[in-house]
C-alpha cells in the first residue's frame, strides 16, 4: 500500500512538473550556445550545467566573465542570484525534513524554481500526505526539468559556433533576464526593488570589477523588504 501511494505521488509530481520543460529548454539551449561562443569548451559548459542547474545564475556568471570581472566578483554575483533558494529550502524543510538524509541531499541538488513552486502548492493543497509521498511528488516534479537542462545545454553547446553573427546573440542574455524578471513584478515591493536595482545599476556601472552591481542589489533588496514590511500583510 505505501509503495503504491508513493508511486502515484511520484507520477502526479512528474505530470505537474513536465510542462516546465517548455520553459527551461530554451534557456539550456541558449546557455550552451552562448557559453561555447564565449570561449568555454564543451566540458566546461556541461560541467556548469551539471553542477549549478540554475539558468539565471549561469547567465550571470557568463555575463560577468565576458566583462572579465575578477573571479570573486563573478562568484559573488552568480551566487547572489541563487540566494532565493535558501528561502525555497527553508519552506520545503517542514515537509521534507523527516525524510532520510540521502533523499534530502538529492532533493537539494535538484531544487529549482519550478520544483519548489509546484511542490509548495501541492503541500498546501494536500497537507496530510506522508513524508515519503511528499518526497516522491517533489522528485517526480523536479526530474523533467533537471534532465532536460542537461540535454538542452548539450544541444546548445554542440550547435554553438554554427549560429551566424547576424542573430545578435549578444542580446539574448538581457532579453532572457528581463523575461525572467518581468513576471516576478507582482507587488509594489517587487517593482520598487527592480527599479532601485535598475537605476543604481546604471549610476554605479562606472565602479570597477562590477562592484556597483552588488551595491545596487543590496540596496534593492532592502527597498523591497522595507516596502513589504510597511505594507504589512495586505500584499502577502
Amino acid at each position, binding site marked *: 500500500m505505501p509503495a503504491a501511494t508513493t508511486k502515484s505521488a511520484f507520477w502526479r509530481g512528474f505530470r505537474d512538473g513536465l510542462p516546465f520543460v517548455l520553459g527551461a529548454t*530554451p534557456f539550456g539551449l541558449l546557455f550552451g550556445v552562448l557559453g561555447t561562443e564565449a570561449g*568555454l569548451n564543451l566540458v566546461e559548459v556541461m560541467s556548469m550545467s*551539471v*553542477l*549549478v542547474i*540554475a539558468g*539565471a*545564475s549561469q547567465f*550571470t*556568471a557568463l*555575463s560577468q*566573465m*565576458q566583462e*572579465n570581472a575578477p*573571479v570573486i566578483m*563573478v562568484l559573488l554575483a*552568480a*551566487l*547572489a*542570484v*541563487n540566494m*532565493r533558494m*535558501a*528561502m*525555497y*529550502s*527553508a519552506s*520545503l*524543510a517542514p515537509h521534507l*525534513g523527516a525524510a532520510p538524509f540521502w533523499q534530502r*541531499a538529492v532533493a*537539494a541538488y535538484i*531544487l529549482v524554481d519550478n520544483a519548489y513552486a509546484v511542490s509548495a502548492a501541492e503541500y498546501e493543497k494536500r497537507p496530510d500526505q506522508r513524508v515519503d509521498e511528499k518526497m516522491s511528488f517533489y522528485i517526480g516534479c523536479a526530474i523533467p526539468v533537471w534532465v532536460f537542462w542537461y540535454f538542452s545545454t548539450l544541444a546548445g553547446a554542440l550547435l554553438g559556433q554554427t549560429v551566424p553573427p547576424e542573430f*545578435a546573440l549578444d*542580446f539574448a542574455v*538581457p*532579453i532572457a*533576464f*528581463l*523575461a*525572467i*524578471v*518581468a*513576471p516576478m513584478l507582482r507587488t509594489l515591493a517587487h517593482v520598487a526593488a*527592480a*527599479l*532601485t*536595482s*535598475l537605476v543604481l*545599476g*546604471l549610476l*554605479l*556601472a562606472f565602479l570597477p570589477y562590477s562592484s*556597483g552591481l552588488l551595491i545596487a*542589489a543590496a540596496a*534593492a*533588496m*532592502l527597498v*523591497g523588504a522595507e516596502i*513589504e514590511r510597511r505594507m504589512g500583510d495586505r500584499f502577502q
Partner: protein
Amino acid sequence: MNYSTFDLWIIIAVLGIGTYLIRFSFLGPLGRTALPPLVLRLLRYTPVAVLPALVAPLVFWPAATGGEPDAARILAAVATTALGYWTKNVIAAIFGGAAVLAIGLYLF
C-alpha cells in the same frame, strides 16, 4: 573572456558547491531552524534586486555596438519587459522581445 583554465574551474566548482550549499541549507544541516522574518523578506527580493542591475548596462551600453546606445536593443528590452509583465509568460516575452530586436535591427 580572458581566464586561465584554473580560474575557469575555480568559478565552475565554487559556483556549483556554493549553489548546492544554499539549496541544502535548510533541507540539511540547518534543519528546521526558523529564519528571522527580516531575512526571509530580503531573500524574497534577490532575483528582482540582482538581475535589473546586471541587465541595465547591457541594454543601454551594449558591447556589440562599442558601448553606444542602440534603439533596436532598447526597444527590444522594453518590449520583453512589457510582455513578461502583462502575460506572466517567460517564453512569450523572449520571443516577443527577440522579434522586436530583429525588426529593429532590420529597420535602423
